[in-house]
């Protein structure tokens, strides 16, 4: 496999954590003639799921297309996604019935969308988020069940968790994300040689020894503590799984181009330029983590709900601006708030493009992925939580239709969570609680 070496050498220097595709024809032999499955095993190319969160909504009249349906028109704030719109769905008019629960400013929208239940109090998610439920189905065969990252560097900025006060902590730096995925333990799927690390075998037996203590620990445990212990042992199994994956020679993956190192992060700060820089580094690394099949589920947050983003030299945060900036009568919107909205949409487009630039056979990585993007308010100035802007990008290997602006008609937002779970193979026909309970998937996008 001399070519393998030359290929790696050729790529060296071209890459700096960027998702770059370099055509290396001989590797195509790993795919079947349709480019849709791995030739060696016949297993279909993996389907991935992820979320992309941003805080503080949009200016609805400037963001939503004018007309529902396929081939929607692009409004000014969605301009960055124009080239990709056939692969992106827009969702409008989906609501969050509160059923007596409070509308916690910036605290209700995110958890309601993700867990299908409106939180009664702040600080914690009312139940498992649906990305976790999806990872339980599609994430069990990869090294990481899911990867979580936060571009603002705040590891608590996460909407992913199993409820009960648990929150999946997010990686706050690109370097941390790089080390976790591509550091020790990473196996290049396209490497000619594969030597299992004997230490891994030993670690495997250690973890199985720890797992053997389960029975003794469970004796005399109350129900809620038993559930928590169950979660611990689920995590332990994932750790064992990780070692198992590292002990197995991976399938070659043409799209996997191992980044040489993480790009230079800027210090975690509220300055939007730094956040964009760090977001793009994280996006590139996540894209490669997917292409190298180290995970099939991810969660990336651009900013927080009550976003502390600032522009250099200004005392006022994005969040303060949403409440305090005057609606410009001539323009019809808040110009300084809109600066942030535009930057966020550009970053979203960057992420989608990064996924779309990786070829997997005849398709792209984006085509084999569903990314669900959403905010936590519709119009932050008034904390409105109906009609919260939401999108999907990619079809998950043809599991959903794309290029459509869907009218929710005032139905519960949980329909999206239900639809996406079903698309990703979660056996569920009814999801959510109280007014958010639904058994009606979104027909417009169901294949």
């Amino acid at each position, binding site marked *: 496999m001399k070519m393998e070496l030359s290929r790696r050498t050729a790529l060296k220097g071209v890459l700096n954590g960027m998702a770059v595709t370099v055509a290396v024809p001989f590797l195509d032999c790993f795919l079947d003639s349709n480019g849709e499955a791995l030739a060696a095993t016949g297993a279909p190319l993996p389907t991935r799921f992820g979320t992309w969160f941003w805080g503080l909504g949009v200016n609805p009249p400037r963001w939503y297309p004018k007309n529902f349906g396929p081939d929607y028109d692009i409004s000014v704030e969605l301009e960055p996604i124009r080239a990709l719109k056939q692969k992106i769905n827009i969702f409008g008019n989906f609501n969050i019935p509160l059923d007596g629960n409070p509308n916690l400013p910036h605290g209700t929208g995110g958890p309601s969308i993700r867990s299908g239940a409106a939180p009664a109090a702040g600080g914690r998610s009312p139940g498992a988020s649906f990305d976790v439920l999806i990872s339980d189905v599609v994430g069990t065969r990869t090294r990481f069940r899911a990867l979580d990252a936060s571009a603002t560097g705040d590891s608590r900025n996460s909407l992913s968790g199993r409820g009960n006060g648990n929150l999946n902590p997010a990686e706050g730096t690109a370097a941390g994300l790089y080390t976790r995925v591509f550091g020790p333990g990473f196996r290049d799927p396209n490497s000619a040689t594969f030597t299992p690390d004997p230490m891994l075998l030993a670690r495997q*037996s250690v973890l199985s020894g720890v797992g053997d203590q389960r029975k003794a620990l469970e004796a005399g445990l109350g129900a809620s503590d038993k559930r928590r212990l169950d979660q611990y042992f689920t995590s332990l199994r994932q750790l064992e799984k990780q070692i198992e994956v590292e002990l197995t020679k991976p399938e070659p993956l043409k799209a996997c181009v191992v980044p040489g190192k993480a790009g230079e992060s800027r210090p975690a700060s509220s300055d939007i330029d730094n956040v964009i820089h760090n977001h793009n580094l994280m996006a590139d690394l996540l894209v490669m983590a997917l292409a190298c099949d180290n995970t099939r589920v991810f969660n990336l947050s651009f900013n927080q709900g009550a976003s502390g983003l600032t522009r250099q030299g200004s005392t006022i945060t994005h969040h303060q601006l949403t409440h305090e900036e005057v609606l410009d009568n001539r323009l019809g919107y808040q110009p300084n708030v809109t600066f942030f909205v535009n930057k966020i949409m550009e970053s979203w487009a960057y992420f989608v493009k990064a996924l779309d630039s990786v070829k997997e056979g005849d398709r792209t990585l984006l085509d084999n992925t569903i990314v669900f993007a959403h905010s936590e308010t519709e119009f932050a100035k008034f904390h409105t939580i109906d009609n919260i802007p939401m999108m999907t990008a990619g079809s998950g290997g043809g599991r959903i239709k794309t290029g459509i602006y869907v009218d929710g008609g005032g139905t519960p937002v949980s329909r999206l969570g239900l639809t996406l779970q079903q698309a990703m193979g979660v056996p569920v026909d009814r999801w959510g609680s109280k007014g958010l309970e639904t058994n009606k998937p979104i027909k417009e996008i169901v294949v």
Partner: protein
Amino acid sequence: MVDPVSASGSLPAVTLTDQLGPVVAMRRLTESQYRNSIADVFGPEIKVAGRFEPIVRPTNELISVATAESTISPAGLEQFDAMARNIANQVIDSANRDLFVKCTPADAKQPDPNCASEVLTPIGRHLFRRPLTVAERDAYVKIAGNAVGPTGSFYDGLKLSLAGMLVSPNFLYVVERAQPDSAHPGAITLDNYSRASRLSFLLWDTTPNAALLDAASQGRLTNQAELTAIVRRMVTSPLIENGVRAFFTDMLLFEKFEDMTKDPMVFPRYNPDVANALPEQLLRTIVDLLVTQDGDYREMFTTRKTFVNRALGPLYEVPVSQSQGWVPYEFGPNDDRAGILGQAAFLSPGEAQQGRSSPTIRGRAIREVLLCQAVPNPPGNVSFDEFEKKDNKAKPTARMRLATHSENSVCSGCHSITDPIGLALEKFDGIGAFRAMENGAIIDTTGVLDGVTFNTVAGLGKAIGANKAATQCVAARAFEYATGRTNRDNDALVTALEEAFTADKYRFPALLMRIATMPETYRVPSPKPDAGSAKVASLTSSDQQGAKP
């Protein structure tokens, strides 16, 4: 008798021969408890490198309460596993090996169950905060032996087995177990080892030392007289400072400092050194008053005494010391600063409002954090239309802008309980630096708290100290911190605690002493319905055949 305060004098390492009682709580170790435990068990030179899965604070609760509900995610356990292997490598590494591995294996390339047991049994007792059961000891010896196969090294086997202990739920969680309460037939109370953990984490923020574990093994912590004597010595130990720091770190929401950033162009006097110094200044002030001086808790809000380092000099506009370290500093009697409310750590708001001061957010923090009074959230459909014209020259100060709230009945209900407190702090900007004017207008700092008026920070501090809610709040929080349970339904207990605190002249160590010796602290509220079937781990006496693998 072994002195539980001195770390020396341990009984020989033994396995547990008694039955383990039913588990009544599992509290996840906090980051500082984890770090302190590792430093105490293995030495301060062992580095703990890694990221800790955060324990999410429930609204208006202590993180300490959330530990009893906290779970460990796959990503969190992955980090704990990496830390565990890293720690185990350092401990068994040749440089430190002699401290922990007293025996020599017959063949360093082969398993040696006897030597492994000799090493792992005492370490296990410290990490699990009780002796290992025979089954556990045998399991870890077996793990060490199995790992020799792939690695070819007895010492690598030890490392891996030790790493296994460090990711065990028995280490990552403080597992609290109960036994029948001899004083109250039918009731159950925490057993001796669980009490040792409670005491040690409450008072010293670390794992129980050998002497305390010995006291537990002798049953002394369920004996009221012995318990009182031991607590007295712990409260008067210098290590009490760690416990007091950890408590106020939790009560005063210090996690906000982890993510706080300020724009250097707007706040040139704010930098990472300042950011690190802010919580430390606050803790030094508190520890000096409450521990070193054994002072009155209420003076925390009025004291002029604090500490500064070089980083803080420019922020406070005080002479900068030549030295790098912390030096005592006392503000003058007429200085605008007094008490912890006058410190930048308290005045710097969180991320969402980082740009400037907010009397509403500061007033809310005083209500919620210091007085334990929950302030409702603004309504979701809140309109800022009236408030937003902040650049209006007619309303240069926050007081004038906030006056809008009192004209609107929807707003005034809540703002009347927050703003009049926070307005007294308006002479301090978004990072807590002094200013006399805002937008060219003189700042009026007149304020009112529950009918008491003031126009200085010292006046506000005095009003807080004199407010029963403040002393009741800290007493209730301390009890919650000790037990990991909220006790808001137990008015009688909170009242009794506050009365005791009053009788003790509001000395905080005395409050901790009360709590640590109260039977209520260890009483298990009402047994969980399914916890009754107290199945016990299968144990055998350590001197039976199975003892020596």
